[in-house]
């Protein structure tokens, strides 16, 4: 590879940001200022140079975090350090919505305009108006703060340790100020000396979990109860008993327990976790990897965030168990870029676990070594697709790969990989502590165990709820408190489907929702009253998919645009006036579902279809 770099030079700040991640450059060939005699005898190429490609995304974050945007000089310097072609790095940087390749203010306020926030009165910037000096305001897809909607995320660039720097998230004032955002509102709390979180009280109250403290809870029993920063507190509440049981059983028996428990993936696809682990463990190729998918970005979903912020050690422990079962020594935790607080709690938890011998070499003296590396996403819904996530970690554009080969065979870095999302992994703890039989007795025969539901929208107690599989939609909404004006419920987020208020007896199980012709998806339950017109919500869904399509395949890249255009045309039309466009939507939707590469395109028409067929939208 004969790389050519441009003439742009990095600023001292940019150079410093990259060097803080990668260490100082070893040679002028790598971008050091001074040439020395040693440079004449310096060579690094081939695999050694290219193997660091996976540091590209962290490097882009380093630049963006420090300066607020990524300049030509900064990008070129990063490329030189990592032996990455500048064109490819530019392609990667432009893929993510949290990076800017143009100058912008150091403070960026991202305003969520997605479904749950729209139901609660958030308005897009085009209708909001009003600029604030020194602040760049951007619209954002769902920030995963739906229980506190409407929400904004404030990100401040700057050097580490120089306050105010730490990204800080708050819920926005309600109702939304008509002139946009007051810059004073999301002012940072004083940066705390405590390593984990500055607004700890909030994490501890567990305000996102209305059932907090209920002894019947299994997955959420520690959220809002334990101090998320304290490993001792975690152990006092039953932490690390599952790992000890796993070590007592051995890897094969752990997989058997998980299989017998009937645990299936909670991300939406409902693939049996035991089978995935078995298939990974059985691969002769090495190393094996474990990847935790914490990139939940489905509009209306916030369960993984609440788990990670409220009970981070549970995730660390369950990842350790999963890695033990599949024979992985290295685990990646791919965390949404929009979750800075979860990142801080997890970084702290991983550090503590490492210091106490629960991660690293020879865990608990069992001869098993495992460690976890957090990788931060940068604003791309598609990176929640497992193979897109691999590409993102590897430093490529987050485009899904075509399957087969499946990740259990060729996953991260082309090696056998078990990928599970946060909720699935956390379920492994009760599987081991209760035993497979007792776990399988929870729920229904086909959907076993407890399930988390993200309830938001027009309810009086929005938040994260835990119910055993088999509870009905009505049971759940009864807990959350629905208004009389309930117009529809969106199940499963933007990729899910709408149901009517008279369908509250749908059992919330994989088979029950399938029979009812809808989907459980990732567990989103978004209640919609008559305050927001349905066509406007459908437009938002369409806009979401248009924005988040990676652009790789034609049905999704162009189909999502055509879908949005048609919904714009019929926003105020009904009946015969809308019939032609609805026929067109059906045609486009069917091709997206049949011919797209990945689940994003295949699901991009679900919600709109269900609104037309079930709710009678535009009729």
């Amino acid at each position, binding site marked *: 590879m004969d790389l050519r770099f441009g003439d742009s030079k990095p600023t001292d700040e940019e150079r410093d940001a990259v060097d803080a991640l990668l260490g100082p450059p070893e040679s002028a060939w790598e971008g050091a200022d001074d040439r020395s005699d040693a440079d004449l005898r310096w060579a690094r190429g081939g695999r050694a140079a290219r193997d660091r490609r996976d540091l590209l995304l962290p490097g882009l974050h380093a630049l963006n975090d420090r300066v607020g945007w990524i300049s030509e000089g900064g990008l070129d310097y990063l490329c030189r350090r990592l032996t990455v072609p500048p*064109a490819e790095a530019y392609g990667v940087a432009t893929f993510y919505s949290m990076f800017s390749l143009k100058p912008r203010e150091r403070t960026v306020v991202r305003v969520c305009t997605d479904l749950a926030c729209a139901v609660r009165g958030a308005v897009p910037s085009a209708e909001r108006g009003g600029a604030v000096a020194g602040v760049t305001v951007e619209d954002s897809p769902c920030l995963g703060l739906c229980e506190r909607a409407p929400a904004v995320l404030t990100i401040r660039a700057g050097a580490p340790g120089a306050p105010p720097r730490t990204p800080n998230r708050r819920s926005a004032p309600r109702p939304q100020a008509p002139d946009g955002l007051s810059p004073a509102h999301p002012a940072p709390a004083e940066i705390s000396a405590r390593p984990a979180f500055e607004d700890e009280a909030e994490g501890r109250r567990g305000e996102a979990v209305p059932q907090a403290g209920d002894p019947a809870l299994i997955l959420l029993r520690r959220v809002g109860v334990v101090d998320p920063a304290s490993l001792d507190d975690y152990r006092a509440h039953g932490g690390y008993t599952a790992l000890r049981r796993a070590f007592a059983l051995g890897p094969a028996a752990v997989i058997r327990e998980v299989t017998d428990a009937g645990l299936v993936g909670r991300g939406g696809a409902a693939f049996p976790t035991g089978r995935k682990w078995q298939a990974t463990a059985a691969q002769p190729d090495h190393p094996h990897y474990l990847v935790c998918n914490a990139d939940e970005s489905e509009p209306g979903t916030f369960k993984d965030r609440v788990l990670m912020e409220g009970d981070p050690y549970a995730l660390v422990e369950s990842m350790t168990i999963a890695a033990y079962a599949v024979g992985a020594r290295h685990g990646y935790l791919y965390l949404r870029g929009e979750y800075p607080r979860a990142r801080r709690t997890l970084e702290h938890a991983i550090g503590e676990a490492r210091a106490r011998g629960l991660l690293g070499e020879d865990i608990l003296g069992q001869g098993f070594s495992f460690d976890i590396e957090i990788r931060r996403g940068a604003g791309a819904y598609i990176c929640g697709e497992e193979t897109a996530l691999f590409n993102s970690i590897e430093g490529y*554009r987050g485009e899904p790969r075509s399957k087969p080969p499946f990740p259990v065979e060729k996953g991260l870095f082309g090696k056998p990989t078990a990928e599970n999302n946060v909720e699935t992994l956390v379920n492994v703890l009760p599987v081991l502590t209760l035993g497979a039989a007792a776990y399988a007795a929870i729920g229904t025969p086909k959907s076993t165990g407890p399930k988390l539901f993200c309830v938001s929208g027009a309810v009086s107690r929005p938040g994260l709820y835990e119910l055993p599989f088999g509870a009905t939609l009505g049971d759940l909404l009864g807990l959350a408190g629905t208004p009389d004006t309930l117009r529809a419920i969106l199940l499963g987020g933007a990729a899910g489907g709408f149901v009517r208020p008279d369908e509250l007896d749908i059992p919330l199980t994989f088979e029950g929702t399938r029979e009812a012709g809808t989907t459980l998806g990732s567990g989103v339950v978004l209640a919609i009253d008559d305050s927001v017109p349905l066509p406007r919500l459908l437009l938002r869904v369409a806009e979401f998919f248009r924005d988040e399509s990676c*652009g790789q395949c*034609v049905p999704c890249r162009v189909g999502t*645009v055509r879908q949005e255009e048609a919904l714009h045309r019929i926003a105020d039309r009904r009946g015969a006036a809308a019939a032609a466009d609805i026929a067109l939507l059906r045609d486009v939707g*069917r091709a997206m579902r049949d011919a797209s590469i990945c689940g994003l395109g295949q699901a991009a028409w679900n919600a709109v279809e269900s609104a037309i067929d079930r709710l009678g939208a535009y009729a």
Partner: protein
Amino acid sequence: MTAIPLQPPRRLVEFTLDGEPVRVPEGGTVLDACRAAGKDVPTLCEGDTLKPKNACRVCVVEVEGARTLAPACSRRAEPGMEVRTDTERTRHSRRLVLELLASSVDLSTTPRVAAWLKEYEAEPDRFGPDAARLGESPRVDNDLYVRDYDKCILCYKCVDACGEQWQNSFAISVVGRGFDARIAVEHDAPLTDSACVYCGNCVEVCPTGALSFKSEFDMRAAGTWDEAAQTRTTTVCAYCGVGCNLTLHVQDNEIVKVTSPHDSPVTHGNLCIKGRFGYQHVQNRD
């Protein structure tokens, strides 16, 4: 004479294609089987010298038991699979893919696409006059080739040919996301500021004419481009000792473009800047 690569004999995989038993060598694709059986499956992003990206989805077929359709170009044949190439479902997706492309991209120089639009009864106009198009103007920033991204279907072939599959220059990449995704060099600069070495291998693989010789672009603009009047002569490049095959496209006794046979064991269709663009001396009559 074509060299015949020596390799162990490959086993044959047997499966059912439109109800007929077919056999392809192990590792072969459904598309290989379709072509061997004489079935005309449309393809755009598939290229004979590159690993298919299966991004265009125009070659989709129905595989028994699969939830979604599969791209014939990259779905490997498996023993016992049942594949249908011409069902209502495959025709629907192919028609929509063609409509979506034709409504957003200028396909006027894409070979065979007009026939496919007709065959699949595609009506690209039905998305209305306001349907978003790429709306790009041609980029003429050097004397050798032109990038007219209004014709680009994002098949990734140029990126793959420039990158690790052939040239290893990595001068271009897909940038942006979704409908706004485009092919560009770093910082979307002119080609002359990039790592491009002007081998023209991207032009060779471009299926739509989005990348074309400057000579072809100018002649098309002037209305003098006439493929029917062109002769093609395959010869050997005289610049160095590698012995690459060149195919000279000649119109009115002038070389108008240079390609290389894709089945040439030396070049597989690839050339360097001299072979591809260095032909002016041949027709220098002063």
